[in-house]
């Protein structure tokens, strides 16, 4: 494996070698854009056809948890950018510290996501036989984590949605399929990113990254920022539909 940053035969300079690696990563990221683009297209069409159900589904998500996770992920991008900077200026201890912070913030994100997902399971909001968007409204005792006034609001909102779309329960499952599909694939990307960050941490603890050679830090940084961008779009698309009611 390429470890020390020696110049490979096919390149003229180290700079050219690094630019080639970066360009290759960008091309990969563009294929990722198309991958998520297709899913977002499916989301957009279902949202267009079944808007009342999508608005109702979105309002059953926790804006607090989603907003918190948005801040956490943005902060992790910031620490990742600082890890890249540390490697560029040769501050070897700082690289490890910022990589570790990025990993920690990533795990905070996973923790919050776990809480959100488990809530959805308890509230019967996972597409399938047991899906019932009225579950919490009809069984408030089974949803102790939802406050009474929130339930009242939800009840009014769902009744309104039901009036607009008699097949609300079926179409809300489309919303929740989009929710689990999109956030699940995003989380999968984060798991891969966290794995790469651990690999970088191992390298930085061994003192492998220098101002002359820090290509892996830069490349993984690009990937991590891309995953952040996906969330920047997922947050308003999933959490912020029709919040003004």
């Amino acid at each position, binding site marked *: 494996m390429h470890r020390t940053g020696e110049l490979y035969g096919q390149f003229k300079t180290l700079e050219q070698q690094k630019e080639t690696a970066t360009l290759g990563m960008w091309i990969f990221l563009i294929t990722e854009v198309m991958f998520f683009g297709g899913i977002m297209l499916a989301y957009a069409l279902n949202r*267009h056809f079944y808007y009342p159900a999508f608005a109702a589904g979105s309002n059953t998500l926790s804006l607090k948890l989603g907003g918190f996770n948005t801040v956490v992920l943005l902060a992790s991008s*910031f620490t990742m950018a600082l890890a890249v900077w540390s490697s560029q200026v040769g501050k070897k201890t700082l690289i490890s510290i910022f990589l570790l912070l990025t990993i920690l913030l990533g795990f905070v994100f996973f923790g919050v996501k776990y809480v959100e997902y488990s809530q959805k399971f308890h509230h019967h909001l996972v597409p399938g036989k047991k899906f019932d968007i009225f579950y919490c409204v009809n069984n408030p005792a089974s949803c102790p984590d939802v406050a009474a006034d929130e339930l009242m609001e939800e009840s009014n909102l769902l009744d309104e949605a039901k009036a607009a779309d008699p097949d609300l329960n079926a179409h809300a499952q489309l919303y929740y399929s989009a929710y689990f599909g999109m956030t699940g694939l995003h989380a999968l990307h984060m798991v891969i990113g966290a794995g790469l960050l651990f690999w970088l941490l191992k390298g930085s603890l061994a003192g492998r990254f220098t101002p002359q050679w820090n290509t892996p830090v830069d490349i993984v940084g690009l990937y991590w920022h891309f995953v952040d961008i996906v969330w920047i779009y997922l947050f308003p698309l999933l959490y*912020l539909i029709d919040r003004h009611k």
Partner: protein
Amino acid sequence: MSEQEHSEHIVPPSTYLAIILTLLVLTGTTVGAAFVNLGRFNIVVALAIATVKATLVVLFFMHAKYSPKRTKLIILAGIFWLALLLGMTLSDYITRVDYRGVRFPISQVTQQLPAQRG
């Protein structure tokens, strides 16, 4: 030192700090805007803010601003193909009408069907 002369542009931490603060403010703005009833423009505002945020991340965190032209070209090509995918498909679906000339959304159509049969 000749290597150093050719090396990449180093973005200072102060720039990163300014960007992350802007991103956090924009996150607050997008949540705030969602609670104002703008009708069909709610989604336009939400996507516009998200695009500003994504642009800041691409330009500064991902160093696209300081990248060679060829990298910028790749990025723009990607955005162009994404625009084709979304634009061409949505311009079809959101202007569709059914056989009676009734516009979708389907949820409204299913409501109207029983009455028309009777």
